[in-house]
């Protein structure tokens, strides 16, 4: 019943006492939260959370365990998870591993028994902070270690594929620049018939264009586009040749490439319930998001980019396109083609555009 203790220590000295589960290693990272009530397997395996410790506000995590189909990556890079309760006995017909077993296998520490809502409130009011998961109750030492560790993380480098590979299809050829992609994006493109070539984040433009893609997608990923200047430099060149689509971090990279700026949001968007307005269609879609930075609205005025999507709550920029070049991008997860999401039309539009530009179809 009463399990071994584990501590979540924040850089400001706050200590949360909870119970161990998952991997055993002490891990440090930026402490963030997500308010989704479903999809914990997808979130835990989302590379956009690389090196972050994620607090789930929903208290019961792992009720459906892990299955062999829904992970967004084979190599999870999340630093740790903080939950109220980690399910010991999951139940779903596809379950083949418990949350604990999965995390233990990947050596990712978890802590349970935590008042996660209090952490959400803390982050909401004071911003994200660095934190460490530790099994030692010597708090001072833990904080000392946290402060002395290297702040700079190269998350994209950690999560991007190290060599190109092809996920075959018979239709349009898409090159996916992997900044920390979600497997579901590849699956979705494949299911729409696309042949997807996943390339490392630092693949030279020349190499990409030599693959004669019908379109290029810049994936989502962790961190800030300022950490990946090479992509920012290359987007323009690629876009002059083929249609380009950006997601999340990729969207920010496109904005930067065309002269816009990135700014911090007062409250990050981290949930699966965020309404976004499609300005042209005058419709509202409910989206899944995970970002603390957004493209600055003012900075777009000087560029050739126009806003296509905006967040209803805070008017922040959620999608852009280029006035003349075939470039579009969204800040959030566009969802599967023909999928359940309100936003599934977005990828469909991109594929149609590729087909049109290249006379496929």
């Amino acid at each position, binding site marked *: 019943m009463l399990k071994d203790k584990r501590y979540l220590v924040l850089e400001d000295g706050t200590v949360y006492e909870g119970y161990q589960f998952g991997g055993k290693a002490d891990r440090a990272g930026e402490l963030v939260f997500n308010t989704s009530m479903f999809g914990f397997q997808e979130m835990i395996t989302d590379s956009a959370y690389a090196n972050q410790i994620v607090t789930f506000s929903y208290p019961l995590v792992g009720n*459906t365990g892990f299955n062999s189909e*829904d992970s967004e990556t084979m190599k999870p890079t999340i630093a740790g998870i903080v939950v109220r309760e980690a399910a010991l006995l999951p139940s779903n017909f596809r379950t083949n591993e418990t949350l604990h077993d999965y995390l233990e296998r990947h050596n990712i520490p978890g802590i349970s028994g935590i008042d996660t809502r209090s952490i959400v409130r803390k982050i909401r009011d004071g911003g994200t902070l660095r934190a460490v998961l530790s099994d030692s109750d010597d708090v001072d030492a833990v904080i000392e270690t946290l402060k002395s560790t290297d702040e700079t993380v190269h998350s994209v480098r950690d999560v991007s594929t190290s060599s190109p590979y092809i996920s075959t299809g018979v239709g349009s050829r898409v090159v996916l620049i992997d900044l920390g992609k979600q497997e579901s994006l590849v699956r979705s493109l494949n299911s729409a018939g696309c042949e997807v070539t996943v390339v490392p984040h630092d693949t030279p433009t020349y190499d990409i264009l030599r693959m004669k893609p019908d379109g290029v997608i810049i994936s989502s990923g962790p961190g800030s586009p300022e950490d990946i200047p090479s992509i920012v430099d290359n987007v323009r060149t690629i876009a002059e040749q083929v249609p380009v689509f950006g997601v999340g971090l990729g969207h920010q990279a496109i904005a930067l490439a065309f002269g816009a700026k990135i700014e911090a949001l007062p409250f990050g968007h981290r949930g699966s319930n965020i309404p976004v307005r499609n300005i042209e269609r005058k419709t509202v879609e409910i989206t899944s998001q995970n970002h603390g930075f957004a493209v600055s609205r003012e900075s777009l005025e000087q560029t050739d980019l126009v806003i296509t999507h905006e967040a209803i*709550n805070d008017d922040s920029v959620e999608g852009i396109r280029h006035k003349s070049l075939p470039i579009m991008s969204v800040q959030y997860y566009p969802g599967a083609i023909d999928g359940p999401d309100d936003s599934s039309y977005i990828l469909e539009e991109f594929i149609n555009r590729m087909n049109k530009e290249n006379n496929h179809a």
Partner: protein
Amino acid sequence: MPKRTDIKSILVIGSGPIIIGQAAEFDYAGTQACLSLREEGYRVILVNSNPATIMTDKEIADVVYIEPLTPDFIARIIRKEQPDALLPTLGGQVGLNMAVELDRLGVLEENNVELLGTKLDSIKQAEDRDLFRNLMNDMNIPVPESDIITTLEGAYRFKEQVGYPFIVRPAYTMGGTGGGICYNDDDLKEIVTNGLKYSPVNQCLLEKSIAGYKEIEYEVMRDSNDTAIVVCNMENIDPVGIHTGDSNVVAPTQTLTLKETNMLRDVSLSVVRALGIEGGCNVQLALDPHSFNYYIIEVNPRVSRSSALASKATGFPIAKLAAKIAVGMNLDEMKNPVTGTSYASFEPSIDYVVTKVARFPFDKFEKGERKLGTQMKATGEVMAIGRTFEESILKAIRSLEYGVHHLGLPNGDDFTLEQIEKKIKEQSDERLFYIGEALRRGISVDEIHTWTEIDYFFINKFKHIIDIEHELKENVDSIDHLKWAKTYGFSDRVIGHRWGKDTDEIYQMRKDHGIFPVYKMVDTCAAEFSSDTPYFYGTYEKENEAVASDREKILVLGSGPIRIGQGVEFDYATVHAVFAIQEAGYEAIVVNNNPETVSTDFTISDKLYFEPLTEEDVMNIIENEKPMGVVVQFGGQTAINLAEKLERHGVKILGTTLDDLDRAEDRKRFEALLREIDVPQPLGKTATNAAEAVENAEAIGYPVLVRPSYVLGGRAMEIVHSKAELENYMTQAVKASPEHPVLIDRYLMGKEIEIDAICDGENVIIPGIMEHIERAGVHSGDSMAVYPPITLTESEIETLVAYTEKLALGLNTVGLINIQYVLSDGEVYVLEVNPRSSRTVPFLSKITDIPMARLAMKGILGQKFTDLDYELGLQKVQDGHYVKAPVFSFNKLKNVDITLGPEMKSTGEVMGKDSSLNKALYKALVASGLEVKDNGTALFTVADKDKKEATELAQRLSKIGYRIMATSGTADVLSEAGISVVKVEKIDAVENSLLDMINNGKVQIVINTMTKGKTVERDGFRIRRESVYNGIPCLTSLDTARTLIEVIESMTFSMDRM
């Protein structure tokens, strides 16, 4: 789009009386909707027949009509008021059916009334099984194999194709009335025949049973711009097969992966889009636990019980926003009223687990069939919020006030394992508790799953609760274990039980170690945005968000789940008390656990604690808030029962003191009071065992009225005519003891009078006097009550007023007091005094325009009535006549005897008002669902003692053109009196039996008083039940019959020979 300016006035139709399947949730939804429309500047015209509602208060709508909800009456209102529009989707199935009817009759077109919200075609497409199925087929959304039938033969054909089991769902009925699952030919005949009868269009959907699938619900909203959001999804712990209203439900879904969630979300949204819903909608789905196969079960294109639950579960006010959508506003332009910062299109995200558990009436109806199925049987429900599933469900269980406090039964050890297995397998209303018992005895999780098909997730959680019990037992006095158990929702009582300690000792241990709950906010967004919703729940964690203000505050205890004897009336009073507290400048804090009610709308009070109403849970809140006092007299017996326990902890009970409450309840002290103030009561004694009871009854003289002390709604109260009956009662019905004696009173056959008064400790205001139609012996809640009284003389009224004042002052009443009198042989006797809010408070408040609960609260807060603008004593009689009529839900409850008696059986009430008594009676009868026909056939089967009286009634009916039918004994008496009577055969006759007459629709009224004697009782019972199944009014009190006859007489012509 901004709101529409081309419409100015809107008619809102309420849902009428509380019945099973349609409870207080529509008062909550309707109130919200009316206020929401007024907020936008529309003139709101409201019609509802239920006076016991907040929505029929004059503050809620611009114009309020309390009239029967029939197309005829609503059409009159439409012609008179000429509203521009009608909003039909907020008054439950009743409101919706009215709109459909008014449209069909051309009333809407004739008066240029536009239907707002979801269009009528969409409503039809969602509600008509055939149209809906076609739409689903077009959209490639799977629906279970099904067929629409209008005849029994059609059902047999369906069975040939699909086989058993299959489900019967009658079209256009609420709460699954008349439906069921057929496993064999007998079921088919019975259920299909009933279903066809109950459907207003004589149509049933037969559907392949998908029992065992997970039942999932989506509460969604859509606006006219096609923005659609999911407000909440919910998972029924019980698999498909038990009506969702009876199921234990958890929000959000627990056993679905994102893939399944998205799949069902997509289906739900595409369906509401295809239907063109504008407002709220409930989508019910069935999901195979072993694959991605799913079916859509049904769609409710309106605000519903589930949407009220979803609103309370998330904080998101569905009805309020649905009303705004109906007038053209869009989700992305309306602010979420909870956060005030985010927009309404932001889908709620919750960071806790919500559990709903249904409250059944089987504590009242012990003989009722407890097996659950597709027909809803619960009268109410409780909701609980926790941060673990275990905490959530255990809090819900102890909110039920059902004699259970935990996952098990207090007498769980009395059952054999076979009995337990049977109860679980037959899906009785108590299955959850039996599952606890089974696990406690070591039955495996697998076995329970085989018996119930409940998902392993939930059974493992139940098992976890039992495991914690065992660990507690092995670690007595361990503070770590105490804390651990608290995080899983264990009450002090249960922990104490495992540790051989009493509740107080555990409370003290917690106090010594600072183990108290913290309170978390319900904010629709899982704390993502800062918000200041004053809506909290308790849990054992770190950070407390419910910081007590420095204002003086008063805690108001609500009345818990709706049940027979404690209905929406008490919520009405609670809400008014809150208003009065706020007006007086205090902070009003509400504690309640019923998600259906207005009082649990967090905008009503300054702070809402959604918590169980138990000593422990309320004390924890008191520790956190430190209020100056607690008000218990508005929350029915629930709150009253807590008073003593709270006072023991030093909590101040405001208003009438506990000691004076006890003086009204305690027999000996009450007698002493009556002697002192010189008010007579029927001769009575108490008994603590059977022998004493017999002795006392003989001294008093039969018949006697017997009942246990301290009860609610006349539970276990009976009129006993002989020693044998009394002995039977003492051994079967009650457990008498020195602490809980049985009261034995002389039964006076007389007129019953009811008075509610308000007292500030010195001054008494009597808003009015009500006379009951049914003689004493019928529970006041089941009687028709008339204001002003019909037959009282001046001097009787004077006596009643004098007694009322003496009683109110004699009991040092501060607040409300309800008194029942009997008038026998010209003498007034007091029957019962309850110094607290009563069922008739809203009825009288509406008639007299005296806000009784508010006034009472003012008195409690120290204001003197002499300083207010009210005259003291009996108030001037209002113009017109007002009748309160009870409404029953017998057609939902199998095997329940409908005979009226001292035990309350009604679930709701209606009011009829008009310029003459007969018109008011007519309206009340019609509003209660009785079809008053001016001709037809009346069937008499009455007990010997009633034959004389029945003869007079038959004579009168015959005179106005009714055909009289009777069973042989009764027929002979009627013939002798010169009435032409058709004799029908007894029940067991092969043909022409009286049951045939009832079943074949040859009878329009049944008058039946056969209740005593073995065969007679059984036959009488069958006659009454068959009448109910056939929707034929069955009157078991000759007083009600006489009233009905008077009404018919007043509206028809008499046929006299020359």
